[in-house]
């Protein structure tokens, strides 16, 4: 262990690390463990009452293409929905990003029943390229990629209902 002494943190370093972790967390954890010998940081946010994970795996989605906002506000009574641009979300475990449904509706792979799908698994897509349609209240909302990359998985079959934020495609950024 003698040669780890050079990069081993002081106790002050540990304290600083712990406090910095806490300060930057958006949600306060239930347990925090910092260790330096063999390197460790464990954080546990699970409430005590349920020891097993009830935490939902999917992060907060909040992405929609700009065209959605335009389409939706054409409805007289619809309050202005999202104006965000499409964002992709990192899944820490897989290194993949996801394209998510910007609204509740029906997902279509293709512009018409006879047409080929916009994209298939394995395809590489460019930023701005359309990858599908979500239809709601007879409005067709194009789903577009804003980043360059390869489609790794399609989660939703053609014509299937989707919820807001539901994963449509997994996406390996180029």
């Amino acid at each position, binding site marked *: 262990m003698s040669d780890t002494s050079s990069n081993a943190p002081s106790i002050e370093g540990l304290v600083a690390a712990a406090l910095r972790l806490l300060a930057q967390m958006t949600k306060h954890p239930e347990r925090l463990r910092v260790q330096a010998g063999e390197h460790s940081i464990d954080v546990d946010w699970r409430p005590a009452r349920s020891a097993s994970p009830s935490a939902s795996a999917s992060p907060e989605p909040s992405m929609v293409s700009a065209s959605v906002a335009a389409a939706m506000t054409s409805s007289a*009574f619809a309050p202005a929905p999202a104006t965000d641009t499409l964002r992709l979300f990192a899944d820490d475990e897989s290194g993949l990003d996801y394209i998510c449904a910007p609204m509740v509706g029906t997902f279509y792979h293709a512009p018409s029943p006879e047409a080929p799908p916009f994209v298939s698994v394995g395809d590489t897509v460019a930023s701005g390229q359309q990858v599908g349609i979500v239809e709601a209240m007879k409005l067709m909302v194009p789903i577009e990629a804003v980043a360059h990359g390869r489609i790794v998985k399609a989660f939703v079959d053609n014509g299937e209902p989707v919820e807001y934020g539901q994963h449509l495609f997994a996406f390996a950024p180029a």
Partner: protein
Amino acid sequence: MFRTILIANRGEIALRVVRACRELGIRSVVVHSTRDRDSAAVRAADDAIQIGPPAPRRSYLNAAAVIEAALRSGAQAVHPGYGFLSEDADFADACEAAGLVFIGPSAATMKLLGSKQEARRHMAQAGLPLLPGTLEPLDARAALALAKQIGPPVIIKAAAGGGGRGMRVVDSLDDFVEAFDATVTTSRTLFGDGAVYVERYLPLARHIEIQILCDNDGNGVHLGARDCSVQRRHQKLIEESPAPRLSADVVAEMGGAAVRAALQAGYRGAGTVEFLVAPDGRYYFMEVNCRIQVEHPVTEMVTGIDLVSAQLTVASGEPIGLTQRDVVSRGVAIECRLNAEDPDRGFVPSPGEIETYVPAAGPFVRVDGHLQAGDVVAPEYDSLIAKVVAWAPDRASARARMRRALDEFVIDGPNIRTTREFLLRVIDDTEFAQATHHTNLVDRLFDNMSLHENTANG
């Protein structure tokens, strides 16, 4: 009866509707924002559809998403709860256009009664007493003439206002024109509409409301009165039924008039007709709420009638199955709204995680809540944690029972402050105990508190 209904709300009222559905054998589907994906209503419902991010504008107020979700879920009807889309006539219209029953009055009735001025005009025609004032918007000169006729104090209100915003009280007519112009300006800024009207102001008044229930066949009953005078800035904190110190004859008269006027407006479903009652006992029509109210449980506890269930029955086209004689009020019910707010800091909401949650329970205590330990009071929505309702044969016993219930209710979390102790102060207040209070009770308690604090510090 419906097979499936969609619930377009959240929190305790969404859970309340899910419970009614379960009891009636109706499949319930709730829409929810990403924030609420693990809420009590979502857990309790048969199905749930995520329709948007936490911001209400993009989820619970997103009419298109709600209707899309309703159609997808196979629902025949939409229950809007209170708040959000519940009094949006356009939404009711859109539901109908999509082949869905909106659980509430027709869009036309909601438009009529949703406009303060049209509602006043209709109710005056139907014979309900109004405070002396204008039925039409008018200019400063005409308004001053009217104000002289009425005599001070008068109140100037934005026609498009509500919830205590866009109104000014004038004690001396010397200040009238200035106040009038200011209200017009405010109203333009806030509501994009400079129309204002003037009516007599009652410095001391009780807020009394009549619960009504009407069906499609023109039958209507009232379910007695509620006293909601314990308010802070037009936010009700404590409600009770029956209204104390209001004779059965007067309630019957108000109730009968309210039902007649509502039926004349084509009213269907559950609704509330609000009145101000002056110290001399005269009552004046204020407005109609075209929805289930937060405080409906007090009426349920004294009448034994499940109002949400009745809403579903009536919306499905069935008759209410009640005559006025079937509505018998028994005992006294009081409701306290337990909010995640800090009374010491102007009732500012205190969202955050709830670590400990032990609701009141036991004899004659009802809790309509939606949280449990580990849940979070979200910053995006109203701060209502739970409604605590206590019933007893008489008002003094109901107050004692409410004190007991509030005493035993435990809500704790690192950032959570609640109105619990403030509510206890009101329950123990001498005026409240004697039911001689008016809508200024909360302000008076706060003045006393500040005074007391100043004295203590000085």
